[in-house]
């Protein structure tokens, strides 16, 4: 492992990869900070520009955006009470209270250091667990693979914050979209309506940019307003001893909570922050301070959302299954470069896996530097009027799509999905499960059909393998827990809090 890691550092320290890591972290911080542009939009915007890069460089840059956005999101939560992205919603409560009382500096430092610790713990976990899991998963056949993907989709619909039926509908639409094009086994054209353009299916990038880039802009155009953030000076960033003492245990617990929740498909990074906040409040000697500027209420959730980043990459890199929408974009980037994530990735492409791990260590350190001393510069970005930001982002979307496809048709696909994404959001449908289902649909169908051929049409054969039984048992357990949670009214409470 040490040899691989040092080789990974050798790759990550290459000047071009250092630059891509820095660009990813910087862009991630910016999109995480700007309300309305989250990690998904940030990833989709830069994805087309990674086409000309080596796979390792592309993944290093995109992963930088992914975990960089988690850092950036806290700044606007603390200084503006506007979460830059969903995982920073809970930070608004105590972070902004601290800022109002002139303690924005310690809040930002604790959030930054907590994010660094959480992110680093998460990378260590990724480094230790991913190779072990890959060894186990190499024994798994197509039946278990199908059940695993089904399990991931069902878990996502069960734990989503919105109505379960809506999430299921979005998944089914995504799976249907995934069937457009030539059948992967017989090459029979499906839903192509005689057109050549649809024979390869709908371009994932055009769809993702439309659903998350364009629709995000359209939604934000409804409420163009300027903001006046609280700007802390450099001296005020230094925390007191009491701040360190109060936040250190929360950082430790947040790292653990975040890492464990990162494995859960769906909105794990958001849920982990709620769980961390609840745990800190429960364990605090002064729970009455929560909601009024408790530093542990900032440290725990901010650590937790960064600690999910490494573990959320494990299902992607080892199973080839994106647990959260942002990792679906990473999956797409890998596949575009001809790299199929799965149990064989670590052995077949060790440079990608270990290069990514090493770059994440470096990236977390870069982010700490970017987010603390340079916070004042980033805060100024928030003063950029949306009237200028929106056209710029849309122009980048157009250039991004055209650079990939050199086709105007893809621009129309992006616009259409932008409108669809906007309408879905207005009607309170979450587009993220749709995107995940599109990514998984193709492989899920192939696994299903191969498994049936192997079992000679025995549908129960899908559930006979050891791995399949484990996933089915886990699903039944989750269903049972959901039933209990529903009976106790907990699910509704979580949904209300999340909204």
């Amino acid at each position, binding site marked *: 492992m040490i040899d691989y890691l040092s080789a990974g550092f050798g790759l990550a320290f290459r000047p071009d990869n250092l630059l891509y890591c820095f660009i990813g972290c910087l862009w991630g911080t910016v999109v995480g900070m700007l309300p309305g542009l989250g990690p998904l939009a940030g990833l989709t915007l830069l994805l087309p520009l990674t086409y000309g890069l080596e796979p390792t460089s592309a993944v290093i840059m995109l992963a930088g955006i992914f975990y960089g956005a988690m850092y950036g999101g806290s700044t606007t939560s603390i200084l503006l009470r506007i979460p830059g992205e969903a995982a920073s919603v809970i930070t608004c409560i105590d972070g902004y209270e601290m800022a109002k009382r002139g303690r924005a500096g310690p809040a930002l430092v604790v959030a930054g250091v907590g994010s660094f610790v959480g992110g680093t713990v998460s990378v260590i976990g990724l480094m230790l667990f991913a190779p072990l899991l890959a060894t186990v998963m190499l024994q798994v056949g197509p039946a278990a693979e199908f059940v695993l993907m089904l399990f991931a989709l069902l878990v996502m619909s069960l734990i989503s914050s919105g109505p379960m039926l809506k999430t*299921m509908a979005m998944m089914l639409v995504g799976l249907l979209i995934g069937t457009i094009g030539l059948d992967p086994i017989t090459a*029979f054209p499906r839903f192509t309506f005689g057109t050549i353009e649809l024979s390869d299916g709908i371009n994932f990038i055009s769809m993702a940019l439309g659903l998350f880039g364009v629709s995000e802009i359209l939604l934000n*155009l409804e409420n163009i307003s300027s903001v006046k953030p609280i700007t802390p000076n450099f001296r005020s960033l230094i925390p007191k001893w009491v701040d360190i003492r109060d936040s250190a245990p929360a950082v430790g617990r947040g790292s653990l909570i975040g890492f464990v929740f990162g494995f859960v498909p769906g909105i794990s990074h958001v849920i982990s922050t709620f769980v961390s906040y609840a745990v800190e409040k429960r364990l605090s000697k002064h729970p009455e301070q929560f909601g009024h500027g408790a530093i542990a209420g900032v440290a725990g959730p901010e650590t937790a959302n960064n600690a999910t980043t490494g573990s959320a990459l494990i299902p992607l890199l080892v199973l080839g299954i994106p647990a959260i929408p942002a990792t679906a974009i990473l999956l797409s980037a890998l596949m575009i470069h001809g790299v199929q994530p799965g149990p064989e990735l670590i052995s077949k492409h060790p440079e990608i896996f270990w290069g990514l791990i090493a770059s994440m260590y470096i990236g977390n350190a870069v982010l700490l530097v970017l987010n603390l001393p340079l916070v004042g510069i980033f805060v100024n970005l928030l003063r950029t009027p949306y*009237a200028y930001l*929106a056209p710029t982002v849309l*122009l980048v979307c157009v250039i991004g799509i055209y650079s990939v496809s050199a086709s105007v048709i893809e621009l129309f696909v992006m616009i259409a999905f932008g409108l669809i994404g906007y309408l879905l959001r207005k009607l309170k449908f979450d587009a993220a499960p749709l995107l995940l289902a599109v990514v998984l649909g193709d492989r899920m169908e192939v696994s299903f*059909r191969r498994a049936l051929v192997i079992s000679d049409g025995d549908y129960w054969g899908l559930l006979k393998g050891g791995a399949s039984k484990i996933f089915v048992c886990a699903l039944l357990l989750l269903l049972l827990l959901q039933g209990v949670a529903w009976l106790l009214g907990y699910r509704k409470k979580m949904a209300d809090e999340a909204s």
Partner: protein
Amino acid sequence: MKLWGQVRLQVRTAELIGATLLLLLSLGAFVVAWGMPDGSLSAPGPGVFPLGLSGALGIVSLGLMIRAIGLSQVRDSDETLVTIGHQQIWITIAALIGFALIFEWAGYLLSATLFLSLLLASFSTLSRTKVFFAAALGAILSWLFFAKLLGVNLPRGFFENF
């Protein structure tokens, strides 16, 4: 100021519209999938998966419809309405469509200048002259960054021979 292009719907109506659209989508997909080869039990054909998915989507859509009907009809207030659309949104979509239509014919520089001019004129309070210069500057800078620095192949249109 009253904005044009806004549609205000009651939550129940919006939910019903959403469920109906999904049901129509599932019906359409089901009809098309019905015509695809279904193979055998041991070797399912290309039609089986889409057929199953569209059927399942139909059932879920019906569930959503029932759920929407069950929502109480409440009196109109801003909290109970779903507002869809906004003049800025329709302008943006029109600008994007226009951009896509003239992009290859007029070239990047001209189409991007027109696109940015339209959006800046709609969203900002700048004068027309400033809008045009800002848009032209934005188009040129983005051309230099993406086409010259990153090597993205953007159409030159009128300027092909220059």
